[in-house]
């Protein structure tokens, strides 16, 4: 509990800074008489949010579900591929260049093709979010599974452990902190992926809200949607951080001990 208070006290300055920025923004817009269609004040954005809040729930859900679904599938397939690559020299040699090529392709540029493949519904959203969150998961999973002390492998070898046992008892547990790093990188990417899918063509989601609002020159609404995207990303990130914190405290406190040194 005292940890929480301590954390609050330390984050006090940061909260104050964000609050100060909002106040400055409001004052600047009012004093300089910036027209609302150009840059709405925070209060105008808030009003737009309150007025339309009854509509926004389903759009937040659509984007959130699409991004989360893509993230989960991308993470699972990323880890699965990493496991294959760690266990097979040949697969590693075949797949590594493909992965590098995959990472060099700006996948968002392929979004129109995905729309052709999967239509304008949830599928495209999930697919883009998956494709974009895949790479950081593969890379982190491989690193996590291969940074095992070679002598642990020696130990397992001398007692005739199977590859499956080495995977489940050594490699995967060793990769856990790395997987969380990968997830944290992938979260904002998955939101971007879902929103870009909605930009293409869609009838729901926060990307769709942005398109409609821009069409109506309803700039405050654009900002409402963007703020909601940020909050969505933040809450996904926070959920993962909570799981990470719980696991770290239970099992991986040595990492904290190392970084304190």
């Amino acid at each position, binding site marked *: 509990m005292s940890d929480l208070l301590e954390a609050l006290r330390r984050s006090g300055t940061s909260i104050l800074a964000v609050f100060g920025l909002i106040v400055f923004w409001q004052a600047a817009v009012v004093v300089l008489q910036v027209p609302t269609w150009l840059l709405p004040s925070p209060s105008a954005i808030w009003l737009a949010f309150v007025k339309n809040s009854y509509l926004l729930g389903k759009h937040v859900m659509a984007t959130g579900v699409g991004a989360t679904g893509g993230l989960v599938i991308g993470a699972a397939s990323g880890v699965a591929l990493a496991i294959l690559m760690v266990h097979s020299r040949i697969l590693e040699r075949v797949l590594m260049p493909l992965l590098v090529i995959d990472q060099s392709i700006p996948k968002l540029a392929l979004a129109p093709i995905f729309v052709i493949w999967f239509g304008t519904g949830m599928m495209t959203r999930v697919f883009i979010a998956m494709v974009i969150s895949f790479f950081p998961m593969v890379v982190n999973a491989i690193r996590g599974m291969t940074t095992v002390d070679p002598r*642990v492998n020696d130990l397992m*070898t*001398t*007692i*005739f452990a199977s590859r499956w046992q080495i995977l489940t008892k050594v490699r995967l547990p060793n990769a*856990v902190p790395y997987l969380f790093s990968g997830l944290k990188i992938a979260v904002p990417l998955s939101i971007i992926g879902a929103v870009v899918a909605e930009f293409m063509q869609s009838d729901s989601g926060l990307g769709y809200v942005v398109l409609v609002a821009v069409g109506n020159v309803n700039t405050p609404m654009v900002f409402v949607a963007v703020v909601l995207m940020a909050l969505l990303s933040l809450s996904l990130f926070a959920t993962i951080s909570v799981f990470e914190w719980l696991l770290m405290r239970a*099992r*991986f406190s*040595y990492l904290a001990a190392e970084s304190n040194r």
Partner: protein
Amino acid sequence: MRVNTVVPIRIDDIAGPQTGEAVIALTNVSKVFDSRRGQVHALEKIQLSVRNKEFVCLLGPSGCGKSTILGMIAGLIRPSSGSVTINGQAIDAARKAHQIGLVFQDAVLLPWRTVEENVSLPLEVLGLSRLEREVEVTSVLRLVKLQGFERRFPHELSGGMRQRLGIARALSFDPQVLLMDEPFGALDAITRDRMSTELLRIWQQRQKTVLFVTHSISEAVFLSDRIVVMTARPGRIESVVENPLPRPRTLNMRDSAEFIALSRTLREKLENE
């Protein structure tokens, strides 16, 4: 659920070979590594046998190939020529029969596992039931005097305790052979003395065949029944010295004339190369 379990009676003496028989045998073993500058002869024509329940030290400077010998007995390194056997069988058979326990210089524990879970790791690999594992873990942790620390994590232990844990893990599945690669090399001198005494007690209690790699003369003299002196480039056995010191050993023996004489002999052999 921690009950006071009765330490199971060990009957390995009945089934295993009798004292005096060779457990570990290296015949004409050579190891050549290919490097960029050509071939490196790490070991040349090694003849070595370790008898049942014997404590043998491999003594030599770094680079003499003593760890390579250990690696070959553990089945981690293949000899270029010659044969390595445990109880007359190939190493793979000994691995399958779980006859080899390994102890490393800095314990090499799994940091996300507690003390009891680390000891339990080999037992899980062997497929023991939860109850069987608990019995073994309790007994072996008592043996190395780590009872009361079951739920701690390795980073919460001192260097000496981590090394005890490493030994406990190696003994958990009751292997016949214990291979130790400079296990006390990273400990301070005081802890090292204590651990040496503890190791001899554990060895006598559990009746293992031990091959212990070290570059410390006094450690070798204090612990061993026999000392294999090695020289480097290429790795060769210079000589094998019988250790006449009586058992049980105490730290005070290190001041005895016999101890000092044997130490001098070994030092001269190492300097001769």
